[in-house]
């Protein structure tokens, strides 16, 4: 991609972020999610304080990181399966509905530039949400021993998961001109990836190909503090496949009536 096209992609991504921030639903989604997570955080903190004397007496007892921070970030990770489709449903489907996709198609930034610019903007939104969520347990750092390494591992894993979910959402949004249908498609794909290996897990199989395709297989190690390249590679692969398919779809849209 040439420098000119790269800068156009950056301009598009910045513009999409701006469009997100000027719309009330975007603020509402962020505020609602953070309110829910804050409530969950306070409940966890309350439970931790109630158990603190017992935990202090036990050897190798789990700390604030395992009992408050990781469950909080795990909840965010689960919520993203529902949130991301709402965030991404308009990115291409909404443009088609408004007849404004022509602006991008005629701007010479290329099909991949359009897809990547939109994806970057959604990812930026989710990184803000992830950072604000991570700030809750980090606020306890002054009075508790936090495992910063483990927190960093979970943060990176969820950031990669966000990238993959955004790519799935952008792909779903490129398939239809109806944002609601795009959200439903993205949600169906997310849930499919989540429960794909449920049968295998019930049978006690944990290292088959079907396990590899499932999202939880690649998140669980991170929640235990293990950051494996194979897991990050999985998210990168899902992201690349979805963005490539979305690019092909945008190319096909150029030929649509």
């Amino acid at each position, binding site marked *: 991609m*040439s420098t*000119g*096209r790269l*800068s*156009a992609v950056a*301009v*598009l991504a910045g*513009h999409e972020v*701006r*469009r997100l921030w*000027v*719309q009330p639903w975007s603020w509402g989604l962020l505020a609602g999610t953070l309110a829910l997570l804050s409530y969950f955080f306070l409940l966890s903190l309350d439970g931790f304080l109630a158990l603190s004397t017992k935990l202090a007496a036990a050897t190798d007892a789990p700390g604030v990181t395992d009992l408050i921070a990781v469950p909080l970030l795990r909840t965010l990770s689960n919520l993203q399966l529902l949130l991301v489709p709402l965030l991404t449903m308009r990115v291409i489907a909404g443009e088609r509905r*408004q*007849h*404004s*996709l*022509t*602006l*991008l*198609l*005629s*701007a*010479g*930034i*290329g099909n991949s530039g359009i897809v990547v610019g939109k994806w970057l903007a959604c990812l930026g939104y989710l990184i803000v949400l992830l950072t604000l969520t991570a700030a809750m347990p980090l606020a306890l750092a002054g009075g508790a021993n936090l495992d910063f390494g483990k927190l960093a591992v979970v943060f990176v894993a969820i950031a990669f998961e966000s990238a993959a979910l955004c790519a799935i959402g952008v792909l779903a949004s490129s398939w239809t001109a109806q944002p609601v249908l795009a959200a439903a498609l993205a949600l169906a794909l997310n849930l499919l990836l989540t429960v794909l290996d449920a049968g295998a897990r019930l049978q006690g199989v944990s290292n088959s190909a079907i396990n590899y395709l499932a999202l939880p297989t690649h998140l669980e190690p991170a929640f235990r503090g293990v950051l494996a390249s194979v897991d990050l590679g999985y998210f990168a692969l899902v992201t690349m496949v979805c963005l490539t398919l979305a690019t092909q779809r945008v190319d096909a849209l*150029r*030929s649509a*009536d």
Partner: protein
Amino acid sequence: MTDPHPPIPLLHLDHVSRQLAGREVVRELDLQLQRGEVLGLLGINGAGKSTTLRLIAGVLAPNRGKVLIDGADLYENPTLARTRIGYLPERAPLHAELTVVEYLRFCARLRGLGRTGVASALQRELERCDLGEVRNRLIGNLSKGFQQRVGIAQALLHEPALIVLDEPASGLDPVQSLRMRELIRSLRGAHGVILSTHQLSEVGSCCDRIAILHRGELRHSATYAAQEGAQLEQLFMRIATDADANGQAA
């Protein structure tokens, strides 16, 4: 004696064809536009005008033939579209949730203008398209006429060599239509303009040359002076009705 080195046209559709949904919407179209010229593309609904303009703007790729901008193939050099072409489609591609200034600033930056270039281009187009009074209003709250002007402004921001306007006066009231024609006339000279329209009166007031399309084929091309007023109307009707009669006979 003919010029051994004729000037390279700003736009050359070199035997372009395009199919959509299995139907050949544009057939072997060969058309040229020189700098400073305003070309009116005429035709009844379904004649292939909008598809032709989408091909020129780089939104669609031709199945056969080439679209050449200053002699360079648009599809081998897609960045040409970014800098050399300004395009207003049939429905202005607007972002209703942004203000006029926010939207135009984005369009200018998308077309590669720098920070200082953006400020001066914005000022110029707000004045030229008479958008000063609504500059800070949300586009979604503007009337159709103002929205169309915002659409025109986005096509002019980067001072493109070629301006492509698909039914620029559609949905405008008579006063707004008149202003649109004045604007198009003011573009003549510095830019090459190609516009599609149903209104023959619009052609007379803005265009140097006309091209009549029917069923995706170029049926007639001439300077407007050679084909004025009622004569043009008769010619247009003859092409449309003859072709329809032939189509029914076939």
